[in-house]
């Protein structure tokens, strides 16, 4: 179990603010830190790993004190047995894929583990290549294999899937979920993607300007306890054309273009480039399962 209380002054884009959080995470739990960039999610992760020092902190892991600023205790990152996946993967360019994973082995662990992980992450064909020749998704798998090779008791994932396309992302989500469950490693993922948080985490901490604004299950947090009977989408107006007595509105929602009609009195207030919200009743929609 992790019990952490961390306080640190940070310099953000809009001046300085205070990172002030208290977390409690059960053993084997998968939690997410969710929030926009620049609110201190990565810093929080780095403090847990021991790569950054807080101004004032108390971190306990399974009953061992990692950090206690009052007693001047600060366990080195080397001794914390943390698996960390960096946003830029941080693969060692001088080592092959296999070399990277091997480098992570603790003294006394068998090389058998390397073969297992390479197999598991589907890296067999790539194992003798250098990281620079790999695609983003492949690098990500190497980084995950390396983080697991050190037999961590805590796994920290810093926006690991942000650079991937949807399909690869979904595959790796399943992979991580499966591994996390079978190994029972306590895992914290930093993400600003709602669907990712929904899929992976049992619990989510929503961070805003250095504080935890909300926490609970993803369903509780993101739908605020009550499910709405409406679809809501935000988008940008691409075109606005008169059509008989109505107006036709072309709106970009995500990466889809939709065309809707607007009443003249609505259309008069709008112009191309405006951000709008489209609301529609979610009554009797067609539901198609995707393979």
């Amino acid at each position, binding site marked *: 179990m992790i019990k952490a209380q961390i306080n640190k002054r940070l310099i953000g884009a809009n001046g300085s603010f205070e990172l002030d959080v208290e977390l409690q995470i059960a053993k084997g739990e998968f939690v997410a830190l969710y929030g926009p960039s620049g609110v201190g999610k990565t810093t929080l992760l*780095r403090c847990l*790993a*021991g*790569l950054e020092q807080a101004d004032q902190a108390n971190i306990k892991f399974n009953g061992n004190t990692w950090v206690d600023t009052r007693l001047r205790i600060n366990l*080195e*990152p*080397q*001794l*914390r*047995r*943390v*698996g*960390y996946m*960096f946003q*830029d993967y*941080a693969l*060692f*360019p*001088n080592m092959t894929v296999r070399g990277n994973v091997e*480098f*992570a082995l*603790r003294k006394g662990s068998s090389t058998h583990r390397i073969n297992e992980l390479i197999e598991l992450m589907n890296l067999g064909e790539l194992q003798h290549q250098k990281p620079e020749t790999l695609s983003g998704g492949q690098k990500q798998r190497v980084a995950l294999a*390396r983080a697991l090779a*050190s037999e961590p008791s805590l796994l920290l994932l810093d926006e690991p899937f942000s650079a991937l396309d949807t399909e690869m992302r979904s595959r790796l989500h399943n992979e991580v979920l499966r591994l996390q469950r079978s190994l029972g490693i306590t895992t914290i993922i930093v993400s600003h993607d709602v669907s990712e948080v929904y899929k992976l985490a049992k619990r989510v901490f929503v961070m805003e300007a250095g504080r935890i604004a909300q926490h609970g299950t993803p369903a509780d947090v993101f739908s605020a306890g009550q499910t709405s009977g409406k679809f809501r989408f935000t988008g940008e107006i691409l075109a606005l054309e008169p059509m008989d007595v109505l107006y036709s509105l072309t709106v970009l929602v995500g990466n889809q273009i939709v065309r809707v009609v607007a009443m003249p009195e609505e259309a008069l207030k709008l112009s191309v480039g405006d951000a709008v919200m489209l609301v529609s009743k979610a009554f009797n929609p067609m539901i198609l399962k995707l393979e």
Partner: protein
Amino acid sequence: MMTYDIQPLILTFKLATVTTAILLIIAIPFAWWLANTKIRFKPVVESLVSMPLVLPPSVLGFYLLLAFSPEHWFGSWLDKELGIRLAFSFAGLVIASVIFSFPFIVHPVQAAFQNLPKSLTDAAKVLGKSNVQIFFRVLLPNIKPALISGTVLAFAHTVGEFGVVMMIGGNLPNSTRVASIAIYDEVESLHYDVANFYAGVLVLSSFAILMVVYMVNRKARK
């Protein structure tokens, strides 16, 4: 037919080899320290390191000569306590060359250390690696091109040294009479063919050394 004394050439390459070896041991850790330190007087240290780049070699040679002379407290302390005389000796040349070529190895290596992503060190730390392991297995192998060019530049620069040697080494055969000095000396005595021989060897060897560096670096980047 004139017989050429190749002693000055041997001495030159011996000086360059010893100097480079010493530089490798002290300049690389120093460059690493300089790349990572946050001390306030870092600009002072950086300026001091770079001084040999801008100063006329004779200035450096002049002050070293003063410091090494038995009249000076440092020189007399060395002489009395350790029995070493640095002025007009090979050991003195080595010390001067190390100082003089220091920036040539520190600059590229420091820049390379600074350009390495910080996350590499962080990643190695969370994997439980000690600082020594990180230095030798992660950092050094990833700055190989800079290491090679720094080493070779320092070597080549020592080969080409003249002013400093002139000031503190003089022209003692087998001890301080390096090739660059010998060339000057032979020209003064109008032995142009001997000077030409030394000069030619330096031109060819310098060209060969530089070409090897560029070829190796091109391969390393691929």
